[in-house]
């Protein structure tokens, strides 16, 4: 384990977080929130920079890092970034309990959008901005950002990037990691700006447009209104947000392919078609199911469409209170939480690609039982997926289920009903946001005990970083002195 390299990389990353902190700092000036509010950010920046200076003081003797160090760097960075990112909430007194502040920040960075705030609108604008901004940073990844802006001389940055970018297979767009990271962030920024612009010309206030765009881009779900998107009560806003939620749930490599005019390859993507089909089918099914309770099919389709895109992209914006919907609809929504968005997008969940592979390998087993000795390769987009990847996906799913089971048991000490407990875990590990019953779209997570909040924060991090980095960080064998 190259401790010095880990420490200095994490240190650099904290410096970047301090840089991010300048934005709410200026915003607090812009909205004239007073010297007390601005000085909070200044103080936090000083703390973060001090931590960064200490960590980067360990100059690495050599820059050799491997997959193991990559995982540790990513996991450690996320925990530290969330800890320091929680400071503005805590120090300003907006969230007096530090566990709550940590939960809120983890929920922000992991683009979950689960909140413990009961009155969101009472927060100062600069804090609301920081809260939504964490979604935007966390969406594409803090470390990918560092890779994009810092010149990288060493060649092993892919180990870090692979650990942070979601999906079973991480493809590079270009031969250089830095260039790949830059293109990803350029695309990300461009689409975010486009969304802000469209919302703004649709008569949404600028501050709201920006924060909504941040939340959509990261597929997070924090809103600056207590009633979430329902507060705008505008079909235009809902359609724009739905479209952009679908877009941000798509693998960014496909956008790049469009950019380099390889539309054919985009259309060939099996994952894309499955993703879009699931959205269409679930929307129709839920619309029919909720028809009796709302008056028109048009309204049913509007609610169903927005909720489905919001849930499958793991954003978690809310217009209708789907907690009151029939059980069938709730079951579909729970399934959508688990499936999640496409690999390589900013969304969470299992990822469509993994679900496709799980189904294919499941069907292969059935086929083998019927026709013993069958040899069948698993293909995705017409290319054979290698055996190792298929087996990794299978073990990933197993670990995922185990973590859900363990977390559910841990949260159950809090003695909420089963649906609330189970869906709270599901929504956190898949980075969605709202759950059902006690933690439904119209309520929040503040009722949980500190212990449950820590468990769910861990679930959010585990889900966002796709299990392995967090487990590797905390497994004793990666810190052993022995080989």
């Amino acid at each position: 384990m190259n401790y010095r390299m880990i420490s200095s990389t994490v240190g650099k990353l904290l410096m970047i977080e301090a840089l991010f902190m300048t934005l709410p700092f200026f915003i607090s000036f812009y909205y004239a929130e007073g010297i007390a509010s601005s000085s909070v950010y200044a103080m936090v920046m000083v703390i973060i920079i001090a931590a960064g200076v200490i960590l980067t003081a360990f100059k690495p003797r050599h820059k050799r890092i491997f997959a193991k160090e990559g995982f540790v760097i990513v996991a450690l960075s996320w925990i530290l970034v969330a800890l320091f990112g929680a400071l503005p909430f805590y120090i300003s007194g907006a969230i007096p309990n530090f566990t709550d502040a940590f939960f809120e920040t983890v929920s922000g960075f992991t683009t979950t959008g689960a909140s413990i705030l009961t009155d969101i609108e009472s927060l100062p604008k600069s804090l609301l901005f920081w809260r939504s901004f964490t979604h935007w940073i966390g969406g594409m990844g803090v470390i990918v950002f560092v890779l994009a802006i810092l010149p990288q001389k060493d060649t092993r940055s892919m180990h870090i990037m692979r650990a942070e970018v979601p999906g079973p297979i991480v493809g590079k767009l270009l031969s250089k990691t830095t260039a790949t990271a830059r293109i990803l962030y350029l695309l990300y920024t461009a689409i975010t700006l486009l969304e802000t612009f469209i919302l703004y010309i649709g008569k949404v206030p600028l501050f709201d447009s920006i924060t909504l765009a941040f939340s959509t881009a990261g597929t997070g779900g924090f809103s600056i209104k207590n009633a979430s998107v329902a507060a705008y009560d505008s079909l235009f806003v809902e359609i724009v947000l739905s479209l952009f939620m679908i877009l941000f749930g798509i693998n960014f490599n496909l956008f790049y392919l469009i950019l380099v005019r390889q539309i054919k390859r985009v259309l060939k993507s099996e994952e894309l078609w499955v993703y879009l089909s699931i959205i269409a089918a679930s929307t129709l099914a839920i619309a029919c199911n909720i028809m009796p309770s709302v008056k028109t099919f048009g309204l049913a389709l509007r609610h169903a469409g927005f909720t489905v895109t919001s849930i499958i992209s793991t954003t978690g914006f809310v217009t209708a209170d789907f907690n009151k919907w029939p059980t069938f609809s709730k079951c579909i929504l729970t399934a959508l939480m688990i499936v999640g968005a496409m690999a390589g997008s900013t969304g969470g969940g299992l990822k469509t690609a993994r679900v496709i592979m799980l189904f294919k390998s499941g069907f292969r087993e059935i086929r083998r039982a019927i026709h013993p000795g069958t040899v069948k390769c698993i293909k995705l987009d017409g290319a054979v997926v290698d055996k190792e990847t298929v087996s990794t996906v299978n073990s990933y799913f197993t670990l995922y289920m185990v973590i859900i089971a363990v977390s559910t048991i841990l949260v159950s000490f809090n003695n909420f009903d089963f649906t609330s407990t189970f869906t709270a875990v599901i929504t956190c590990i898949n980075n969605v946001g709202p759950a059902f019953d006690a933690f439904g779209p119209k309520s929040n997570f503040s009722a949980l005990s500190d212990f449950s909040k820590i468990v769910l924060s861990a679930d959010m991090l585990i889900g966002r970083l796709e299990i392995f980095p967090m487990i590797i960080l905390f497994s004793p064998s990666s810190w052993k002195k022995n080989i």
Partner: protein
Amino acid sequence: MKIIIAGAGKVGETLIEQLSGENHNVVVIDKNAKLIERLVNSYDILGICGNAASYGVQMEAGVNSADVFIALTQTDELNILSCLVAKTAGIKHTIARVRNPDYSKQFGFFKNELGLSMTINPEYSAAREIAKVLHFPSAINMESFAKGAVDLAEIKLKHDNPLCGSALSEIQRKFNVNVLVCAVQRNSDVFIPRGNSVLEANDKLYITAPRKELVRFMKKIGIYRHKTKNIMIIGGGKVGYYLAKQLSENGGYNIKIIEKDFARCEFLSEALPDVQIINGDGTDRDTLFEQGIEKLDAFVALTSIDEENIISSMYASSLGITKTVAKINRVSSKVLQSIGMDSEFSSKLIAADRIVGYIRAIGNSDESSVQTLYKLVDGKIEALEFFITAEFEKTGTPIKDLKIHKDTLIACIIRNARVIFPRGDDTIQTGDSVIIVSKSKQFRNINEIFR
């Protein structure tokens, strides 16, 4: 003695060279006519081309008048079968090389039920030697006599060693330890030192002492190293397998094997559940670092390619790993010494030494024959253990009155599990084990050491 060797591979040829040099009548059987022709031209032996398990071929080789039959062909089953044929033909001593790990647990069965005099597994023996060195890493090489009562350790003197510049007679007084330096290798020269010999830097010393004294001595001269813990083995072939198995059975080691071949890795992971098996190229620098080469106590290179073993273990040394071991098949140890290798092992030499030791022992009708034989420094020095029976002629004579051959040394006498470094007044008695170090005299009997 008449000795038939079936199969002239690496071990076979080493044996032919040694045994024909010791004036035995050697007949070699091999399927390869060209190989036979080359051997007959290079050594003073008789060659027969054919299948060693065939009765006809064995009769042609004169099996009915031979004393020893050594089967060293490629296949274990052929070796066992040809030994059985030879046994039926009336030969007394049969030696078979059996390498397959499947048979490694039934050596007793081969001996007792099938009547083979000796079964040797060169890879297993090499693994045992390596395991000894890993257990006692202060020495470059370790051998033991009299069931472990006395060790023979090989150490190298670095420039800063306090022994440099002191005469042998001063050692005992200076360090207050009971050890005996029985041979010294200086550059390519070997000599048996006297009390007034002065040690120099870069000398290689061969030291006999009980283990406890050896440890004390090494601590005093500052070369003692603790038992190794983290061991990386490059190449999961037979030697690697046996070594990892022995070490994991001993316990207390963390072992990692890096093996290129995936199918072999799967076999190893099944056979060695306590050992980490990594599928990768152990000569690749990145792989080595990823697998934590900096944390190692010992690096063991056992691939089939000598050059890879040499280069990767030198690389490991350069990273500061104190114990590196390389398996060598072909390259002469002279070359290796000149480039400063730490420890190296050759399974063919280990196997050949064991067979030669056995043949020396049966060459004598009496029991005061060679118990153990080690060849040191390319065979220039031999260390032999004799058991003293009533037939020993000089029982009770003080050593100062015995006339011993030049370049021969009575290193120590083991009496009732007590080790005596003999002085002039000591005597050799019946029931003792005596260790003799000699500069290539090829003694077969203790009586031969006296002029």
